């Protein structure tokens, strides 16, 4: 098992980065840090995905001359999927940051707990 883990060390690093992102997301109460955590998680998933496409000793999947022998090139599909993933991640990050700005405008803090209590108080006060 240790040997296969060592062979797949890139995936292992991806898992560790994923955990770093996930713990950042869970443990920090600051919204911006949470967003950073989400981004780290996404990035780890892309690292994982990219590493699947790599094949030892082969070229990037851009055809050179007339050589279309598949055994000379790496796998193009993971690269395409990562591209999709990155676009999605950019979009949701922008959306989350915009939400953060709105929330900050309304509550003047980025700490989610404080915001939550303020919102609760608002609710109780409203009745």
């Amino acid at each position, binding site marked *: 098992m240790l040997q296969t883990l060592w062979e797949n060390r890139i995936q292992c690093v991806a898992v560790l980065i994923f955990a770093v992102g996930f713990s950042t997301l869970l443990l920090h109460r600051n919204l911006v840090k949470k967003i950073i955590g989400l981004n780290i998680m996404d990035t780890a998933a892309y690292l*994982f995905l990219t590493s699947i496409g790599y094949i030892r000793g082969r070229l990037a999947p851009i055809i050179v001359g007339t050589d279309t022998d598949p055994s000379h090139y790496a796998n193009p599909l993971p690269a395409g*999927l990562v591209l999709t993933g990155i676009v999605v991640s950019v979009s*949701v990050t922008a959306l989350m940051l915009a*939400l953060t700005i709105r*929330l900050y405008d*309304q*509550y003047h803090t980025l700490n989610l707990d404080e915001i939550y209590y303020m919102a609760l108080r608002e*609710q109780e006060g409203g009745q």
Partner: protein
Amino acid sequence: MSFSVNFPLFCIVGSLLTAVVSSVLGDRWARRVCMAMVSVVAVLNGVLLGYLTGLGRSVSYTMGHYPHPWGNELTLDSLEALVSVVFSLVLLLCLLGGKAQLQRDLGDRKRNLYYVMAALVQTSLLALVYTNDVFTGYVFIEICTIASCGLLMIRQIGRTTLASVRYMIFSLIGSGLFMLGVVFLYNITGHLLMPELKQTLADLWQSGLYRAPLLTGMSLITIGLAIKSGLFPFHFWMPDTYGYATPSSAGILSGLVSKGYIFLLLKLIFRAFGTQVFYGAGIHHILYLLGVIGMVVGSVSAIREDDIFRMVAYSSAAQIGYIYMGIGISPDLGVTAAVYHILTHAITKPALFLASAQLTDGAGGSKRFRELQGAAYSNWVAGLGFSVGALSMIGLPFTMGLIAKYLFARAAFQSELKMIPTLVVLGISTVLNTLYFARTILRLYNRPKRKLAKPCPVRRQIPYAVSALVLSGMNLLLGIVAQPLISMIEQGLKQF
């Protein structure tokens, strides 16, 4: 091959175009275009449903010149067409019924952007229902997430923004896990198209090769979709999200979006994992357990609430529990019950949210029960809509809710292990549902001590009245003549 197999493509591209075009139109035209599009989608899917029911098998529709396993594909069969029809109809009725509150909640903000988001939700629901490709599922899950967040946060009060942040965080964790699961499965199979994936996974399961990544991939996908649809330990975002959104959005999010994810999960179980592998791996036991706990916990939390929106939202958590319990019982009768309950809930919950909005508006805007005393007298349509929905959630005769409960009970008898707990929990949950829904209905029809608010003339709320009456009518109709629907679902599941 009939021309009608092209309809899903037209519907998906048409709703994308509607979204894009609505973003430059004025408020009124955006609304008209969006409504027209949703109606057309419902009609086209209805035609397709007719064709596919007659055909009796599923059709795969290549998106481009390359068949699976190379190119993207859609699969069409009668169950998918049925679900699309119901979803589009309910979306239309949600937009129609919440029109008055939309105008109030959005103010003179650019209302056309609301319809952009609604059209995007429609697109992604269609794509999630029809897709034959796991990664397409991921892309449209993300569109669905962003668009539903848009529907939610477009009402910009503090609580809604906070709710959207929580919703987004949960959703993004869910889609991140989904993506990771897809990556694991791709790594061991090399396929993203469902038919090949199923074949390869079945072979791998037989040979015992790559057992750990296989289980991990399947569970990550399941967990991701469970988080996004709000299964028990992940239901915390629900009350805030549904409770503070504008009523149309609450209806769309609870009735359609979460159901879209569950339907995608069902589709993956049947078409991508294969029931043998999925049920062989035992993941369904966990779903069953969480579903059962969710049914009770959701209802207990609903009893605690004295805010009508949050109560209905917690009841959603309980209903999601029902659906997952059905998936957990067995792949045939259990899933039939789950699909029926998906439809039940998609029809009932928007009706409840829309009716609550009308009632609270009639009672001066407060969502508390105390203020709602006798609200049904000032707005009898909303009272009727709420009562039918609530009775259906309780499971009284002549409503869809009873049929759903009957189907769950029928499925329970299949499994020796799960029979007793299922029946007991069904009973408990019915009692709890009765506790909180009956109390609301009694409140609504209790003559208040103070003077009644002036009855709201029906004329002024024709859009809402139409949508409430259609939703209640569908509920009663499908509750009384349920057999055709059930046999359609069963036939559809066989083709899956």
